[in-house]
């Protein structure tokens, strides 16, 4: 009787958290990338929630369908959502090519990794180009940090200048806060995309340099991939809250 009790007490614990092994079975850098992305989620959430709070605090709000109407080089106005649709498609597409690069890395196929990384970088650059065009367009209309098309005007001229962008009542502060939040949030997202493109280029160079081939692991592609998907993820939310709602 007593011998069985003792042997149960002395039994070696072999759960995931009893030491001697990696409980999450993940490499350190990958866990750190995840933790960074969780913290970045809070930053972007704070921005977007502030946008929502502003919207709730204003008696009226700008109509996104009327602000974003142009397709550069094709139509000056009357085409809401089409251009941002193209941008969204580009970013989703580059997310797919990134997973394909990670997948190729798992199979140790250097040439495939290079091919898909190049497509991903191209997608990222196309997205940044589109965003630059969008910003330029809005800037020409008079929107900027702390500025809207009615800045400097007075009286009825304010309503007249802002009328094209509103469906409901017209208000200077609503247009101003929209401009501030739009440039801050898409700007911060665009900054993330730029960093992502830079990281992708570095990883591409290392791949071409056979660094991963020699070390036998394409884990770095995976880590940069996590970051790149996160950028796509943020855009999904920015797209919904700025362009759809």
């Amino acid at each position, binding site marked *: 009787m007593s011998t069985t009790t003792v042997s149960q007490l002395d039994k070696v614990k072999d759960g995931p958290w009893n030491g001697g092994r990696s409980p*999450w079975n993940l490499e350190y850098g990958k*866990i750190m990338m*995840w933790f960074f992305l*969780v913290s970045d*989620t809070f930053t972007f959430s704070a921005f977007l929630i502030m946008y929502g709070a502003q*919207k*709730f605090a204003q008696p009226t709000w700008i109509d996104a369908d009327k602000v974003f109407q142009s397709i550069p080089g094709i139509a000056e106005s009357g085409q809401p959502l089409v251009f941002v649709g193209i941008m969204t498609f580009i970013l989703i597409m580059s997310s*797919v090519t990134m997973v394909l690069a990670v997948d190729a890395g798992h199979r140790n196929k250097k040439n495939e990794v290079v091919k898909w990384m190049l497509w991903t970088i191209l997608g990222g650059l196309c997205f940044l180009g589109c965003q630059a065009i969008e910003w330029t367009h809005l800037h020409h209309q008079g929107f900027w940090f702390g500025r809207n098309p009615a800045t400097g005007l007075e009286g009825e001229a304010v309503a007249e200048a802002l009328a094209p962008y509103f469906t409901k009542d017209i208000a200077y502060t609503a247009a101003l806060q929209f401009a501030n939040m739009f440039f801050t949030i898409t700007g911060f997202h665009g900054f993330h995309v730029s960093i992502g493109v830079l990281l992708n280029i570095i990883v591409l160079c290392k791949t071409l340099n056979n660094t991963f081939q020699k070390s036998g692991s394409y884990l770095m592609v995976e880590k940069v991939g996590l970051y790149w998907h996160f950028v796509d993820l943020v855009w999904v*939310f920015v797209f*919904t809250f700025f362009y759809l709602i």
Partner: protein
Amino acid sequence: MDKKGIWRVFFVLLALTALEFLIALGFVHHWGIIEKGMFLNVVYIVLTLAKAYYIVAYFMHLKFEKSSFIVCCSVGLLFIVYFIILLLIEGDFLLDAFQSHPVFPNN
């Protein structure tokens, strides 16, 4: 996840995005069947969260990690829900508070 799986997730994301565009461009803007409002916002947010799930679970591979890691990365996000509720209530309060009380000069 194999190549077939990757493309399957891509088509799910594409379909969800296409649905959003169909609603926004077709039903709201072009045909005028649905009006912008709370119902439509809920639809958009549900579609967005579905897209976010597919990106995080499959593209970022989180679904296939150890469950304790999934919990570790996602449980903190509950604070975001709390934050959303707090700030939207605050914004709604300010709408009323800002509009109904004028500022008087203090001579």
